[in-house]
């Protein structure tokens, strides 16, 4: 149990890479890239977790204490999610334009950049 979350994170990263290598559609390749990135979310949050600890938000019920989950990995994962959303949008825009210019979204049939 102590390393299972890390292996799930590594599995997502490698499956995402496999998705890009095998994909027949550029949108599918971009979606697989975001799956690979989800591997980093799982790894970061797994590294910051503490058994029995609560969320790092204090209020009237929970007085400030140190028995909370690591907030810094959550901040890093938040930034990572924003990066994922925006870079995915940019790459989808490029994929749409590639399909418009070369008539096919399949990377195998793209002829433009050779040699």
């Amino acid at each position: 149990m102590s390393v299972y979350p890390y292996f799930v994170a590594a599995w997502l990263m490698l499956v995402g890479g496999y998705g890009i290598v095998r994909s027949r559609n550029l949108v599918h390749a971009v979606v697989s890239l975001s799956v690979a990135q989800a591997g980093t979310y799982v790894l970061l949050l797994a590294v910051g977790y503490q058994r029995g600890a609560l969320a790092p938000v204090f209020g009237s019920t929970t007085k400030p204490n140190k028995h909370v989950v690591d907030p810094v990995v959550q901040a890093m994962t938040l930034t990572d999610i924003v990066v994922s959303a925006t870079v995915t949008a940019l790459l989808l825009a490029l994929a749409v334009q590639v399909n418009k210019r070369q008539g096919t979204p399949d990377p195998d049939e793209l002829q433009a950049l050779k040699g």
Partner: protein
Amino acid sequence: MSRSARLVVFLIGAGCVAAMFAVAFFKMPAFGGSMHLYRDLAVPASVSHYTANVVASVNFDQRAIDTLGEETILVASVIGAAVLLRPAEEEAEMRPKAVGRTLEATKLAGYLLLPVTLLIGLDVVLHGQVTPGGGFQGGVILATGLHLLYVTGSYRALDRLRPLELFDTGEAVGAAAFAGVGIAGIVVAGNFLANIVPGGTFGQLLSAGTVPILNGAVGLEVGCGIVVLVAHFLQQDIIISAQAEQAKPGGSSEPQAGERVGTAERS
């Protein structure tokens, strides 16, 4: 390379990388352990600045330049999408034809949900430093909420009630406000992105100094940015189509009947 050769090369590489990961994972501290050095530093630092939500304190106070970089990535991507999805030289924007009819029930639900969603989004933005949520999450809720107009009405209704220039300016103002507060930190306290506003009382709406201000700037920026982003994807799908297709007598695709309103005709 052929597909199979590519797969073989990948599997060899991925196999070794998987072995690498395994070796490293068994050397890492066990999952759920209690040794978190950065947390032991971040929690007291957050409490010292009267911020109840420690994640918001890390995001907007202790490591604020990460969030500045993150929001600038959002601005760069929205500008990039706007540049990449503009109508090409030989394309033009058609007036979208009213297609299909929305159910009365959906319309009613939409009109009821719209103000509620916008209110929730605003609440999530403003309470960023007290409860889970914050500028980014609230901005996303606001952006998706606005698109209820499209669900209930038609694209033309959405287009009329959502002037893109206003949202472009809103996004730019949000990003500039974030950097401006940072520069104000230098002017007032000599440190970029310093928490220069008095802390207020712990756990209340007015607490945590500049965190709510930065949350508001990010909320404005993300809300406008995602509306512009989705708008460009909607435009690309609904109203931009190739010029040559327009000249064809028959026409299978639906924007056929729309007359051209485009500005970027090929001279």
